């Protein structure tokens, strides 16, 4: 249920100079939800000035192409300001979605958070 669209959809933690982002939602599906998640992600770069983002997908069971679109925009944003985006802990079924759309080659995707922290 998306009855509280304004609540925080991300859990953000700073590890060294890397900002680790966990998703609160298990399903990143509906339009409104994706919009809010996208806005909160973009704000980490645009408003908070963060440059090294690690997205941990450990909680995420589903995502749709609209969510992929937000990740692509986020990546572009970070590249534009000399930052980096790394993804990790992606469930196998969701990883398949990245493979089918060839985004597994587009993003820097690491298995575990620890390895991902090294990837910056």
């Amino acid at each position, binding site marked *: 249920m*998306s009855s509280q669209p304004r609540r925080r959809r991300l859990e953000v933690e700073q590890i060294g100079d890397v900002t680790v982002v966990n998703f609160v939602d298990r399903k990143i*599906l*509906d*339009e*409104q939800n994706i919009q809010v998640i996208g806005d909160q992600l973009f704000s980490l770069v645009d408003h908070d000035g963060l440059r090294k983002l690690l997205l941990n997908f450990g909680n995420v069971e*589903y995502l*749709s*192409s*609209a969510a*992929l*679109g937000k990740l*692509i925009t986020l990546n*572009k944003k970070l590249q534009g300001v000399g930052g980096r985006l790394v993804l990790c802990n992606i469930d196998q*079924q969701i990883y398949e*979605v990245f493979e*089918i*759309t*060839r*985004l597994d080659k*587009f993003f820097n995707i690491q298995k575990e958070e620890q390895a991902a922290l090294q990837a910056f």
Partner: protein
Amino acid sequence: MPLTVANTMNFPRDVKPAVAADVSIPSDAAEARRIQDEIEQHLQARHVSEHDIFSIKLALEEAIVNAMKHGNQFDRAKKVHISYQIFADRFDVQISDDGNGFDPSDVPDPTAFENLERPCGRGLMLMRHYMSEVVFNQRGNGVIMSKVFRNGGGNGKK
């Protein structure tokens, strides 16, 4: 004659579906969620495999979002029409909107390097990958999809 997957593929239609429904919903995300949850519950009750359910959910999400967003421009007055049937061995669904339709061949290949950053096309690609069959109607405002269960599924109690 209604366009159905059965008419385009040679599925035997003498078998009655275990579950069949036909609904029209306004272009509203919450309404879409409700019908998707309902379908998921039916599939789970029939012991369809987790991967098949994942596939169907993803394809439904993409098709319904396309219908509401591109077809109906999120105009609540415009409806999305969803009919689905669950058989012992497969799931069929027909989704149409009140929009003007589109030509699926106009959608660029989202995996081409120059298109990777474009937002469109990935939904269609996922639908085609995850479903056994995806067919658009002539006008392009309707899609019919079918998923043949991988394990012959649907062997839940009748």
